[in-house]
């Protein structure tokens, strides 16, 4: 990648992309539009995700900030790092259901999953693949499965089954119904986030050349 193109990616594309993810991560469309700030636990999960990204070499902080770069380049690197953290946090704000039993289960599941990934030694590609699976599964569960369970419409049989399910789970399963637009925006946000992660500059490979003295 040319120096200028790398500069544009670091200074413009990546910060704007991750900031857009941070903006859309809290968007909820019901009868009104609301921007929901992340709950405290989303910050914890965001921090763990950040750790996973660094450990898996998806995010290489030394590529973005180091002593050999100019002050401006380091500031651009800092902007990318901060925007990545904000986007990571907002992704959890987006993926985790709002309340009840699903809120608790998603939080615990994602916490354990991230800790497990952090404890291993995954490479960049594995981390990206793993995150795509986690993000995709969470999206399907929240915006398709839980949304269907919480949908107040439908026939009498569906409403009866849902009432039964609600009774069994003491009303902790169903969520506030969201407008269909929320799901589409969420999907676009998750795709943007994964694309942004893939665009992060990879770590430098240090190699040693063995040269015979007579050559």
């Amino acid at each position, binding site marked *: 990648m040319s*120096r*200028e193109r790398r*500069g*544009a990616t*670091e*200074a*413009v594309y990546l*910060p*704007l992309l991750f*900031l857009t993810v*941070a*903006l859309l991560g*809290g968007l909820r469309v019901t009868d*009104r*539009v*609301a*921007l929901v*700030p992340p709950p405290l636990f989303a910050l914890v999960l965001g921090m763990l995700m950040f750790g996973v990204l660094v450990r898996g070499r998806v995010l290489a902080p030394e590529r973005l900030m180091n002593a050999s770069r100019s002050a*401006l*380049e380091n*500031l*651009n690197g800092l*902007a990318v790092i901060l*925007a990545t953290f904000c986007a990571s946090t907002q992704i959890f704000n987006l993926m985790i259901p709002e309340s009840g039993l699903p809120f608790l289960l998603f939080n615990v599941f994602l916490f354990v999953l991230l800790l497990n990934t952090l404890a291993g030694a995954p490479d960049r590609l594995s981390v990206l693949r793993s995150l795509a699976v986690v993000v995709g599964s969470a999206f399907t569960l929240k915006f398709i499965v839980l949304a269907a369970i919480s949908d107040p419409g439908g026939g009498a049989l569906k409403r009866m089954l849902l009432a039964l399910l609600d009774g069994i789970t003491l009303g902790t399963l169903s969520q506030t119904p969201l407008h269909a637009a929320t799901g589409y925006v969420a999907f676009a946000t998750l795709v943007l986030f994964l694309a942004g992660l893939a665009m992060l500059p990879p770590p430098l490979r240090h190699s040693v050349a063995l040269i015979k003295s007579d050559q």
Partner: protein
Amino acid sequence: MRDRSVRALGLVVAICYASFIVWLYVRQPQTIAEVTGGLSASVGAYRIDQQAFSDGLAAFRGEQYEAARAAFERADPAEQDARTQFYIGYSYYRSGWGRFYNDDAHFKLGLDRVDKAIGLAPGGRLLVEDPDIAIHNADELRAELTAGLRTEAADLNPMRVFRRRK
């Protein structure tokens, strides 16, 4: 040189965008008019539509509160002007006031607008000099609306029917 310019420009744009996002999360605007109005108000460039405000005031004085509210909404689409919000709150108070009982729905809407007016006024203090209204202070209007929403033993006092609308 070009790389340096791109990097500097990118940094400025990123800082502005991040500030805009924080502002959106704090203010929670609902319409594009509220976004643009809020941004122009934050730099002191927001102006209400004076003609629509005058129309609203005329309708308010003629006791046509629905029409007055429509004109005030048109005058201040971004809901950034404390005085206009005060008048909208006042019109809800007058619409909801009743000799025997008050309309809680109108009073609640009025309370929202008065709270908004207090929030927009410098230092939260809003005085409206208008000889045609009895309440000139936003805090006083707020207290009147809050008292109207409260259910208490005094509500059963038959002398209440002789009280006057402000």
